[in-house]
């Protein structure tokens, strides 16, 4: 664990300049990520399927262009954003509202491990043993927006933590990007209101890249990816079969039969592996579909 004082050189410049920056940051993992261009992706915890999918897609696209994805490691959109980046072997930063010893939500312990294993980093302004409390989540949100150059709001209900983060972002002079929603969707009320108040409406990840003046530098990205894949230790603890299933499911949700057909394995073997993975928290089964747990 690295402790970073506000006066130290490595303390992120963007964060230092906000209204009430944290005096001290506790960091786990790769501290280099703080120097990269960062975008935060935020949204509801009770997200819709479509929202999760969009968050993942945007995150993947941005990460593949070398952008570090910042989010709060909560359920829903946050998790989807982190996973999107991880699937592209990109960098990602999770900002916790509690100490490292009290990961919240507990289901995301696996995500936590994956972020660290993939050269990402975890940040908190709280001492390792501090417990999560409701006010800390709001405090945490100012760091999420403060760390990054822009905030992408995927889904937000009328009154939500996401709306608060977006408010912080405006106060901190950050760009706020919003995905438009159908006017009937409860999870779209917040984003639509933000757009009304001047947030930037985006429909494609490229629009964010353009805004940030980031040109796709294919060469450097490729190099980076090679570097990553060399040192990729994320799936270290899984056996080959589990890895194969996880990769297949990361691409698309499947039913057990489809999975068995695709991997050309016996259904009983698939059932055994799937249960094992479900118990390890790698996947969940919703109705008849199996999907990775993000």
């Amino acid at each position, binding site marked *: 664990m690295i402790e970073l004082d506000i006066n130290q050189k490595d303390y992120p410049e963007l964060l230092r300049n906000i209204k009430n920056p944290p005096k001290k940051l506790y960091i786990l993992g790769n501290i280099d990520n703080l120097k990269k261009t960062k975008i935060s992706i935020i949204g509801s915890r009770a997200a819709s399927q479509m929202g999760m999918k969009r968050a993942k897609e945007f995150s993947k696209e941005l990460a593949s262009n070398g952008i570090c994805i910042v989010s709060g490691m909560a359920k829903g959109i946050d998790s989807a954003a982190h996973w999107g980046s991880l699937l592209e072997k990109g960098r990602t930063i999770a900002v916790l509202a509690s100490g490292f010893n009290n990961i919240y939500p507990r289901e995301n312990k696996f995500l936590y491990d994956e972020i660290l294993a993939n050269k990402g980093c975890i940040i908190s302004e709280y001492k390792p043993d501090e417990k999560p409390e409701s006010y800390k989540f709001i405090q945490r949100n100012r760091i999420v927006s403060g760390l990054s150059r822009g905030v992408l709001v995927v889904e937000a209900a009328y009154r939500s933590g996401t709306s608060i983060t977006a408010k912080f972002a405006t106060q901190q002079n950050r760009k706020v990007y919003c995905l438009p929603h159908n006017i009937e969707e409860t999870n779209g009320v917040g984003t639509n209101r933000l757009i009304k108040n001047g947030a930037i409406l985006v429909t494609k990840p490229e629009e964010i890249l353009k805004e940030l003046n980031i040109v796709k530098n294919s060469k450097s990205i490729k190099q980076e990816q090679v570097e990553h894949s060399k040192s990729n230790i994320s799936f270290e603890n899984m056996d080959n079969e589990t890895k194969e299933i996880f990769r297949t499911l990361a691409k698309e949700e499947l*039913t057990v039969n489809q999975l068995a*057909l695709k991997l050309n394995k016996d259904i009983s073997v698939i*059932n*055994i592996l799937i*249960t094992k993975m*479900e*118990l390890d928290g790698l996947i969940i089964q*919703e*109705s*008849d579909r199996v999907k990775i747990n993000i």
Partner: protein
Amino acid sequence: MLSEVKTIALNGLLGSLISVQVDISSGMPNWNIVGLPDASVKESKERIRVAIRNSNIKLLSKKIVVNLAPADIRKEGAYFDLPIAIGILMASGYIKTKSKNINFENTAFVGELLLNGKINSINGVLPICIEAIKLGVKTIIIPKKNKEEASLIKGIKIYGVDSLKEIMDFINEKIYLQQIEINKKYINRKNNYNLDFRDVKGQENVKRALEIAAAGGHNFMLIGSPGTGKTMLAKRLPSILPDPTFEELLEITKIHSIAGLVNNEIINKRPFRIPHHTISSTALVGGGKNPKPGEISLAHYGVLFLDEFPEFRKSTLEALRTPLEDKEIIINRLQANVKYPCNFMLGISLNPCACGYYGTNKCKCSKESVQRYLAKISGPLLDRIDIQVLVENIDYKKIIKNNKEETSEQIRKRVNKVRNIQLERYKKEQIFSNSDLMPNLMEKYCKLNDKCKSILEKAADRLELSTRAYEKIIKVARTIADMDDSSQIKENHLLEAIQYRSLDKKYYIGEK
């Protein structure tokens, strides 16, 4: 003059020896039947009178009293015609009271008379014969039309007769009748199922689950959208059920015989009953004024499949609870107290939600509505379902490409093997399959090692499995272990078994 002939009265599957006493005396011409006969027995008067006349015998106009003793047992059914007719003929001296061919002391008669003097077939010949042996009867006379059914039985002399004249001649030693021989060809006859698992493309998961269910006798549940093939899959289940033993066949035929469903042949496969959802509770569990076996008893040693489960009336379904547990049903009526066995495998099918399309984009139901729909299956009933499996929509294009499927014959061979392992293991325990395991026996036969225990703990923690799921998972794991020819339950068996508890899992209804 007084005569006495024996017959058997059936109450459920239990028989009692009835003595038919006939007295013919001079007095006002009159005919009375006493001894708690029901309407069909009382009506026999007319049939017997005409049948005797049409057999070219002239009865004198005398006072006839027929007593069916003991008088406190209720007698029903038309098969008392023959013993009463024999009694009358004997009392009027048309047949011998002592015959070389028949010893009236230990001979029972059953049969329904037609007006032309012929003897018609009756229901329940098989249980009557079996009960007759228990009651010490040595010879039984039955309608010839029922001879196939009776040919299963040994330990008693059985004669099939065609007409009143024939039996009279036999008793009077004018002709000699051939005893019905034991015939086992029906049992060995190969089962022909016109439905085969070969016809089902894909759905490997459900096929596997049904194979496990068939092997261990587990109750199962199929959940799937309309058109996914739930009923199609379930209807093929009989083709992979383990071959029944001779004793099981006897029991199955007995019940079908009482219900009049035997049609003069032995039932040589396990029954598969699929009642419509408008069924009344009486039709399901049995009953009526003279209690008849219901669908659950007709499914004895076979499968009762309730398609579109939530459409059944709630009271009907709840009536299933005790018989599922006790494996028998006692039907209490004012005038009867009948017990029928009902050791069946319960299969149910349902849609995943009210609109039927949960899990696809077509579904319009809210999360709450899905929960409400699933709540229609009461907890106690869900408690008794071992295997829950989802039937998925399959892609039409993939069906065509798919390679050859296994035939039911191949699957049944495996199932038979696994069932034999269980029969061998439980031969001292009076149970037949893993699904019958009681908690005390589970401790003995389903020992779990530490690794398995930790898997179960993990499952409880992560999937929030309900406690009721444990026992089921262990039983199913026991069957999977048997399929794997393993004497111990290993981790993989348990892991696979957990997979068949879809509904119990925390995430089954995801965020909508």
